[in-house]
């Protein structure tokens, strides 16, 4: 069980043009634009940040079933480009219990290889007692 405020190990993702284009295509973006300039769309943050976050989420579950992604906040700073290595840490930021539901809020912070902050996230999930 992860403790509130305890940062996870760093999870690194090597960003490729192919990943950016696949993501852009899957979300209906203008693919040509991303092929040409190699800069990822903002929501590509979920590609490099989610693995660290979901691993931390799993560490907070007690054998419950599927969780519900209830809310999401992202902030963007330096752009992410093909060729960057993005490292993300995550932590459980807040836990609350209301009736049969636990609400867990996680924080993620991602930096590029030069140490620049590229994005921060707040990920809120509900853990229902009896499944969805």
């Amino acid at each position, binding site marked *: 069980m992860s403790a509130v405020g305890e940062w996870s190990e760093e999870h690194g993702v090597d960003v490729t043009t192919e990943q950016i284009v*696949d993501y852009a295509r*899957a979300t209906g*973006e203008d693919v040509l634009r991303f092929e040409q300039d190699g800069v990822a769309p903002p929501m590509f943050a979920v590609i490099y940040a989610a693995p660290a976050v979901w691993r931390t989420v799993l560490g907070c579950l007690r054998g419950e079933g599927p969780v519900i*992604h209830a809310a999401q906040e992202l902030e963007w700073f330096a752009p992410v480009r093909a060729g960057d290595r993005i490292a993300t840490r995550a932590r459980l930021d807040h836990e609350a219990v209301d009736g049969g539901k636990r609400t867990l809020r996680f924080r993620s912070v991602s930096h590029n290889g030069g140490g620049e902050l590229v994005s921060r996230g707040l990920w809120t999930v509900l853990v229902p007692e009896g499944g969805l």
Partner: protein
Amino acid sequence: MKVGEEIRPLRHTPGPDATRRYAEASGDHNPIHLDPEAARAAGLPRPILHGLYTMALVARCAGRAGDGKELRRLAVDFRALGFPAEEIEVSGVVEEVSASGLSLRLVARQGRRRLIRNASATLAE
């Protein structure tokens, strides 16, 4: 843009294979998005869209309202389940304009369901 002005809405119909394509691109292979039986076992009528897919549409709608300014922050609450092959409309209004950027309030609807409401976006240089 002025406070209260509506931004250009975004209309997008996720294809029948939208959840498979998003799963492959994002690495989120949760079967409730892909497998009809797994969806039914979870109490859902059929596979549902990934919430972050819908958020990506909101991000796209907000981002193109920036007139050169970049999307710097986006916060959403996921309120209802979205499904492939039904049109999603994202709309929004300008809430604040400053020298450094603007703030938007957005909603994503699919039919009568509000998939995302009270989304808040900030755009800046």
